[in-house]
């Protein structure tokens, strides 16, 4: 052993001196064993012997001092040897020896030498052939190792070891002495302690082996070789060189793989090593051997058999410690410090530089949705009253405990009011404060004097006109005030009032009908309109009922009660034509069509179409009109239902009538009263042309002249006429078509008294005034009778007028004349 190593070892041992002391005894045993082995080996391998002797002598003194160290070093070598001798036959003896050592710690070391001898003996016995083979093996390995490392040094070390062993042997007695001392000091060391001791030595040893890197090649001391510390190399039949030298090469590996080992029960070998050689089974031991081994081997308790190699493995101190730690359910790694100072890496305290660079997750600052759901459920339950807060519960409990009283004087509870539909409380009017007059002792000025008394009595019949509702009376003291004599009666009346009084506010609007009438525009805004009378059309002998302009405005036609229709020249008031129809004419209208020369006149229940003649209007137009109307169109294509036929009949015109100008006559089933408002409107418009006499007498004569008449209006194209008969019920509106001479009843039901019907001058609309309402019907789609617009005009019922549009001025020239 080189001196620096021993120095190192010495330092280590000093660190844990006590352990060293304890272990020294055991090591001494080992040394002994080794020594015995070596001596044995000397015989076979003689070539190094001389060297060893020399070294022995040199190191005598040192060995004695550093016995522990040397022992350890030796042990190192022994380990190597153990490793090498995986297949050594006598390894079990070694194990036994160990067991013996541990189990009987008290037993004196004197036995050991004997044991060693026996062991060696037994190993010798095993068989010579094997030994020789082993030896050759070791030699081979040695050679290998020699290739790798500087041989000289190695051999030197080996020699030193040998000499050490020898010296150990020499100093055996001294060691034993020491051993005894130690035993005396720690006689009661238990198994556990022993384990501890063992581990302590191991721990001490491991750093040593690591640190010793410099002079020695790594291959000798690397870690895996050192860990199976306690596996002793088979003592016998092994070369000393081999044992210390080729530690890593010597690893015996069973290459059979993961097969059940009982397959090899019948074979002498267990498997094969890397070189394909058989790994022989270790010698089987019987019960007695087992027992003996148990008795002898101190390491027996920690010896287990490796099934793959079939060898006994003595668990190292580390292994034991590991097992113990697992048993105690502690962290298996002994180096793990359970009580390290805790470093709080992730604190809630915000650091300046965050440990993690990524930003906070969104969910970390969003309120939880599930929680929100839960809360909302709870809130809902609270609102619905399914759940109650503690406070409410407490209140309820308190309320239960309190005494309940029935509200005797509560006149009506709310539920009752709700049931009866009384939602609004009408407070009684606040009574005025009592005045001086109501005092029992009013000031004299409040008392009624004679005159006032007289007045009071005068208003006996109408007491509400009196100044007071009571008679101020003076009493000398309150005591003398009598009870109110009418109390009972008035209370009774009051009850009657209450009984009959309505208890709800009537939501009635107080609106004057006049307010609903739209405000009339000022006459200035309505200009141009007639302002002055400029012409009078004189000639009618009776009330003029209607007048109309021709489309150009050159002529005016008027119908009168005297049974005539007169055609006037507008500009001069010259009567150009008079057509006597016999019955009073209530309505006349010129056709709007420029291509026709026709005047429609309603005479009684008949609707007559007149041609004013060739000299009025255009000749050609008058002629064509006559031609058109001379012959009625073929009527076979017209199917007229009974209802229509009875309502209106197209009559043939007699020659006499023709000469007078009548071209078409349509008799209606019902002569009906004319609508006067329409009449008024006409008069108002043509006032300038009508004699003032009739206008003045109009209102007075209204009833008198309620003649049997019909009302009608032209369609813009002049082909259709709508006739209105207020008494016609469902057939009060009839539309006549001139070109085909047929009639239609546009409405099946009467909604009321039809007062007036009008066509829109340019667009296909029909306006009907029924009762108080005006209806508006589109004619574009045939059969569409739906009322689109419904205009309610309460004041102007019965008259529908259309504002003339720019496209077509109704009374073109004539209106402008004004």
């Amino acid at each position, binding site marked *: 052993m080189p001196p620096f190593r021993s120095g190192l070892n010495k330092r280590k041992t000093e660190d844990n001196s006590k352990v060293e002391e304890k272990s020294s005894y055991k090591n001494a045993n080992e040394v002994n064993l080794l020594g015995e082995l070596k001596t044995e080996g000397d015989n076979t391998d003689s070539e190094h012997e001389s060297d060893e002797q020399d070294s022995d002598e040199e190191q005598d003194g040192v060995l004695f001092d550093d016995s522990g160290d040397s022992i350890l070093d030796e042990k190192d070598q022994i380990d190597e040897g153990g490793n090498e001798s995986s297949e050594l036959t006598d390894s079990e003896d070694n194990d036994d020896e160990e067991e013996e050592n541990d189990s009987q710690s008290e037993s004196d070391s004197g036995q050991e030498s004997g044991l060693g001898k026996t062991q060696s003996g037994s190993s010798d016995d095993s068989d010579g052939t094997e030994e020789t083979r082993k030896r050759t093996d070791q030699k081979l390995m040695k050679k290998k190792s020699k290739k790798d490392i500087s041989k000289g040094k190695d051999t030197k070390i080996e020699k030193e070891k040998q000499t050490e062993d020898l010296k150990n042997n020499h100093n055996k007695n001294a060691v034993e002495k020491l051993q005894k001392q130690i035993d005396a000091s720690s006689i009661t060391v238990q198994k556990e302690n022993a384990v501890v001791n063992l581990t302590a030595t191991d721990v001490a040893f491991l750093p040593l082996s690591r640190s010793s890197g410099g002079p020695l090649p790594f291959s000798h001391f690397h870690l895996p070789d050192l860990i199976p510390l306690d596996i002793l190399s088979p003592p016998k039949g092994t070369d000393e060189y081999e044992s210390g030298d080729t530690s890593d090469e010597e690893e015996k590996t069973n290459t059979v793989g993961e097969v059940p080992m009982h397959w090899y029960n019948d074979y002498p070998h267990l498997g094969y090593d890397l070189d394909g050689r058989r790994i022989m089974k270790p010698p089987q031991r019987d019960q007695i051997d087992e027992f003996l081994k148990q008795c002898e081997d101190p390491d027996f308790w920690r010896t287990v058999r490796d099934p793959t190699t079939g060898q006994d493995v003595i668990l190292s101190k580390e292994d034991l410690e590991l097992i113990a730690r697992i048993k105690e359910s502690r962290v298996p790694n002994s180096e793990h410090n359970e009580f390290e100072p805790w470093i709080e890496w992730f604190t809630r305290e915000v650091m300046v530089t965050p440990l993690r660079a990524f930003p906070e997750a969104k969910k970390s600052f969003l309120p939880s949705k599930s929680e929100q759901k839960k809360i909302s459920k709870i809130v809902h339950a609270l609102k619905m009253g399914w759940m109650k807060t503690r406070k409410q519960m407490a209140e309820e409990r308190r309320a239960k405990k309190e005494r309940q009283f029935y509200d005797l004087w509560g006149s009506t509870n709310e539920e009752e009011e709700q049931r009866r539909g009384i939602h609004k409380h009408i407070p009684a009017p606040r009574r005025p404060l009592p005045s001086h007059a109501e005092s029992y002792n009013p000031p004299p000025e409040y008392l009624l004097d004679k005159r006032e008394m007289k007045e009071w009595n005068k208003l006996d019949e109408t007491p509400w006109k009196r100044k007071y509702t009571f008679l101020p009376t003076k009493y000398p003291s309150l005591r003398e005030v009598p009870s109110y004599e009418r109390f009972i009666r008035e209370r009774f009346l009051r009850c009657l009032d209450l009984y009959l009084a309505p208890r709800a506010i009537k939501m009635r609007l107080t609106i004057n009908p006049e307010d609903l009438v739209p405000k009339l525009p000022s006459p200035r805004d309505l200009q141009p309109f007639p302002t*002055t*009378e*400029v*012409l009078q059309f004189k000639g009618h002998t009776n009330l003029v009922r209607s007048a109309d302009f021709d489309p*150009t*405005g*050159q002529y005016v036609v008027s119908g009168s009660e005297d049974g005539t229709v007169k055609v006037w020249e507008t*500009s*001069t*008031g*010259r009567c150009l034509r008079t057509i006597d129809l016999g019955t009073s004419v209530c309505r006349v209208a010129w056709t709007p069509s420029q291509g026709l020369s026709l005047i429609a006149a309603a005479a009684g229940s008949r609707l007559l179409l007149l041609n004013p003649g060739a*000299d009025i*209007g*255009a*000749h*050609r137009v008058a002629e064509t009109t006559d031609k058109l109307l001379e012959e009625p169109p073929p009527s076979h294509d017209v199917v007229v239902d009974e209802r229509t036929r009875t309502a209106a009949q197209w009559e043939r015109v007699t020659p006499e009538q023709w000469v007078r100008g009548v071209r078409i006559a349509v008799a209606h089933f019902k002569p009906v009263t004319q609508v006067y408002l329409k009449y008024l409107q006409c008069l108002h418009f043509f006032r300038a042309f009508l004699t003032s006499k009739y206008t003045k007498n109009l209102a007075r004569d209204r009833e008198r002249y309620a003649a049997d008449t019909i009302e009608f209006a032209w369609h813009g194209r002049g082909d259709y006429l709508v006739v209105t008969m207020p008494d016609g019920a469902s057939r009060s509106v009839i539309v006549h078509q001139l070109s085909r001479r047929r009639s239609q009843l546009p409405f099946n039901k009467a909604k009321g008294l039809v007062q007036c019907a009008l066509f829109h001058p340019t667009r296909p609309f029909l306006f009907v005034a029924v009762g108080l309402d005006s209806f508006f019907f589109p004619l574009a789609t045939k059969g569409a009778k739906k009322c689109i617009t419904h205009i309610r005009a309460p004041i102007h019922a019965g008259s529908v007028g259309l504002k003339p549009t720019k496209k077509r001025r109704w009374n*073109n*020239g004539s209106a*402008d*004349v*004004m």
Partner: protein
Amino acid sequence: MATEVIESQVQVKFVTKQEKYAVPDNPFTVQSNVLVADLNNVLNALLKDVHPVLGKPVEFDFLLCGELLCSSLNEHIQEKGISTEDTIELEYFERFPAPSPQDCLMHDDWVSTVQANSNWILTGCYDNSIHIWTAKGKHTLAIPGHTSPVKAVSWVSLDRNQAVFVSGSHDQTAILWAWDVIGNSVECMMTCRGHEKGIESIAVSPDAKYFATGSWDTNVCLWNSSLSDEDSVPSKKRSKPEHGKSREPLTTLKGHREAVSAVQWLDNKTMLSSGWDHILKIWDCELGGMTTEIIGNKAFFDADWSPLSNSIITASADRHIRLYDPRSQENIVKMTYTSHMGWVQSVCWSKTYSTHFLSAGYDGQVKLWETRSPKTPLYDLSGHEDKVLCCDWSNPALLVSGSCDNTLRIFKAKHANHGI
């Protein structure tokens, strides 16, 4: 204030454009409430000194600021807002002498139209007849021929032996008549067909080659007024024996939207028409297109143009007579004459005086106007008992008017021997 004004005096200066009545332009101080008659007296007194030749006192009219003095000087000054501090220049001229009623010619029906020339008076009547009267008021001829009321008549030419005139009627025709004056027989020379509705007015061009008609069918038609039958009329239309030959219009001027109430020639190529559609149109007859348009705000019943003053007067239903300038591009009424009580049906310029015209209204009045006196007419020629339908001053000596009372009234204008 009023009394103060009455008390005040104004300095006036008399000026005139009539040299024979010229007076020295010394200012005179007169009372402010002086009347026209008083001024006349003052002036006549002055004239006596200057021109002792003039025996009779002359009636004068006074113009103050372009307007005829009708009321007292004071009122006129106040109305016009003239300063009384300065000397007021009063222009005076001889007053138009009052026309005197001459005759009343009875007709069978309403007299719808009248035109006089130097010797004869032509009237149209509602009984479809045309009448010719002498200027003295003697009925010469009654011409039936139209089938509807005659609405317009006009002389075309007048010779010693033969007179040609044209008449328009509501029967949509205009007939060109030739009247043999000596034989007193009339012949329907040409029936002009082309209107679709009644003819309302007729005007003959100054050179008498053409005449124009306005009708209710909104058209104005131009016709050749020659009696010869050179123009091409289809033979089948010519074959109507009762009306003689037919004639078609040279041009039809379309543009009015309502009836054409009056037509009037400005010169041989230019024509004026007025309509019920509130529009006065001036047509170029050669091009057949409209040149100027004056838009009024009332329907025009009659319009007349005077070459002397180059202005148009119109009649409307709102009792106002309006004066337009055909040259102005703006539709501005230059003057409004209001005295009629109702519908004014007819107006007629004087052929000799640029400032005088006649108007006839439905209030039965015929009024003689001076253009510088918008409020007051010079004279009211009353006498009609019904609507006056027409008036004429073609003969400067005769003021004729036809009325609904079946009469034609003739007023004789004393010929004033001056013209301005």
